[in-house]
């Protein structure tokens, strides 16, 4: 066991630190600073840092990616690049399955953050059981015609393109067959976006309707009927959970600070035994997540593939996102159920909003129950349902 960095890695860490200090500074950052920062990280090839250099990525090693992520998180830096889903999975899928033309057309724009991508996977009747999707797609010569509906499509109303899963074949042995992946401009005739208001009062996700939407065949990603493999491989671009751990630690620090400021039964909540235990338990879990991540990282560095064990940290994260919000409200006692606009609610209602926004993370990438199924079936070898 050795938690030290090699001299080269240490030098890279220093480079990142220096860059962040010079280009972000402390405290509040204005739009101009952030825009300048985005331009410079793009020039440094830190956007798409893990992608191969031939596609404009940074070709960073696994360890360098971890160092970059960690330093970014510590400096509370804005994300590298602005095309979030493009960088997270659309780009990696195009690099793996795209034609040369598709790569040329899309990859530079994703790196430059020219516009947003959204993800059209879930449907009203296909959520956790995503492979049961039924959005209809028929081929007419060199054109696909799509009819159907997607739902929970985050940022659909602000996106120029959608990566879409459709069903091109209905008579199939396995429901995973006959699914095709299409790349579709959102301004295509026949697409309607209807934002859905969430319980926190905001609208981030939407329903997307497809009514005789015509998509040229050259916009297909991967082979016809093989779309499930494209999706799975794109979602498998998982890394250790370094950034999430730093994010959660920061929230925990703020919860501790809140506990010092709020009073319970006339005493600071930070002195309440029950509150102290809950804060300590959250801290223990975040540390477990960090160390689990380092064990996964060690496996990757040794050249082994990561399997479904990464669901371990997804479960921790889900539990922590809920627990930290609940804890913050419990600390506030009678102020807990108030909302922004009340003059006695701490931090202008930040915690109330936080406590109503966990589904974004907890449901988004597969619910905790699905993660447990994954562990039970793929790691423990229990029989499938």
């Amino acid at each position, binding site marked *: *066991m*050795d*938690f*030290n*960095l090699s001299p080269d*890695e240490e030098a890279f860490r220093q480079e990142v630190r220096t860059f962040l200090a010079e280009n972000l500074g402390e405290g509040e950052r204005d739009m101009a600073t952030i825009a300048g920062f985005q331009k410079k990280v793009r020039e440094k090839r830190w956007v798409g840092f893990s992608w191969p250099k031939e596609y404009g990525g940074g070709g960073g090693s696994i*360890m360098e990616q*971890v160092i970059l992520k960690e330093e970014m998180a510590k400096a509370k830096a804005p994300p590298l690049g602005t095309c979030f889903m493009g960088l997270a999975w659309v780009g990696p899928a195009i690099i793996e399955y795209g034609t040369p033309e598709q790569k040329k057309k899309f990859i530079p724009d994703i790196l430059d953050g020219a516009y947003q991508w959204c993800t059209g996977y879930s449907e009203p009747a296909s959520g956790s059981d995503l492979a049961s999707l039924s959005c209809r797609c028929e081929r007419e010569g060199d054109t696909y015609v799509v009819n159907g509906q997607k739902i929970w499509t985050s940022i659909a109303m602000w996106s120029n393109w959608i990566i879409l899963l459709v069903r091109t074949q209905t008579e199939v042995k396995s429901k995973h067959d006959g699914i095709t992946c299409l790349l579709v401009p959102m301004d295509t005739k026949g697409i309607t976006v209807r934002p859905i208001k969430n319980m926190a009062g905001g609208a981030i996700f939407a329903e997307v309707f497809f009514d005789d939407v015509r998509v040229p065949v050259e916009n297909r990603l991967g082979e016809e009927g093989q779309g499930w493999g494209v999706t799975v491989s794109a979602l498998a671009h998982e890394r250790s959970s370094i950034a999430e751990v730093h994010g959660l630690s920061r929230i925990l620090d703020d919860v*501790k600070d809140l*506990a*010092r400021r709020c009073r319970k039964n006339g005493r600071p909540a*930070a002195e309440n*035994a029950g509150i*102290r*235990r809950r*804060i*300590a*338990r959250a*801290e*223990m*879990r975040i*540390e*477990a*997540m960090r*160390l*689990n991540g*380092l*064990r996964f*990282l*060690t*496996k990757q*560095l*040794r050249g082994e593939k990561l399997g479904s*064990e990464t669901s*371990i940290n997804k*479960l*921790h994260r889900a539990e922590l996102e809920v627990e930290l919000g609940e804890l913050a409200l419990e600390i506030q006692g009678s102020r807990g159920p108030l909302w922004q606009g009340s003059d006695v609610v701490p931090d202008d209602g930040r915690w109330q909003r936080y406590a109503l926004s966990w589904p974004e993370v907890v449901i988004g990438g597969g619910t905790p*129950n699905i*993660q*447990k*199924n994954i*562990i*039970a*079936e793929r*790691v*423990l*070898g*229990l*029989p*499938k*349902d």
Partner: protein
Amino acid sequence: MNFGFSEEQELLRAEVRKFLDQNCSLDEVRKIAEKPEGFDRHLWGRMAELGWVGLTFPEAYGGVGLGWVDLVVVLEETGRSLFPSPLISTVLAGTAIERAGSDAQKERHLPGLADGSVVGAFALVEDADSLDADGIALRGARDGDAVRLEGEKLFVPDAPDADLLVVAFRSGDAVDSISLGIVERGAPGLSIDLLPGMDETKPTGRVRFDGVTLQSDAILGPVGGAWPLVSHLIDCGATAVTAELVGTVEGLHALTVDYAKQRIQFDKPIGQFQGVKHPLASAFVDIESFKSLCYYAAWQLDEDPAVASLAASRAKAYASEAAPRFGVDAIQLHGGIGYTWEYDAHLYLKRAKWARPAFGDADHHLERIASLGGL
């Protein structure tokens, strides 16, 4: 960056496992537990010969000179086999002597502890059931150069078998009045009796000191200066118990997963039902997590023991909550068979219950995490 074991450590694990598989099946564990001694001197001696008892002691005193990360590998396997042995107690007694003892004390005691001829124990907790300095009430009154001990230790792991006890006592009211002394079996005024326990593989005792005299050569380090070392020994003990729990809970988990694959109800293996899958998946998350925390605590004990408390507390807090909880779940998942004496599940459950308070329960360690974290 490398948060994994070396080839040598993996080899050590394979050796320990093979030895325990060959010599200490669960049938054997049951037989050993029934013996009045609670452990098997012959097997213990062979383990010591293989170097596993003195693994962390210096080579100059009969040890192997390795670290806590190596010891964790051994403890995981002894835990998995539920091997009844005074390994943790003997290591703690030896660690105290190695850290604070004079050359003469080390020469006198460490080789015997390393070769298995002397069983050690660490007598700390008393009736107050506290791991804080205030919890030590055992009085050591000055008597010329010597000290006379009056009082009682409770819940002392492996005390009934111990040949040598490292004992924490106080000579005043302040934290800097706590000392450690060595008391050997047969000392006048010393009496030890067994406190019958749920887990017969972990004999626990009461130790009475009715005017036991400690000569100056039996006091470890400067009089009154032992609290930092006692605190370190608690970190070591918490980490060691957690390491054993990693193996124990993994053992019980494997038993239960196998059962869930084989047991047919409603025409299906019960492992196909989510009501069975999910607690098994949750337990897996917990085991992997307190395992990570435990490995890191062991690494800190080797690298920077002065700051290892937080890491040890996180590991033991997690394990103290998760292990007994899964013990109960595992029995339920088995149904009636899990409730029987013949089936092995309860052996693991009882070990988890033994381990829960040992060197601090979750409540103790969570409070320590909160304090060390600035609350």
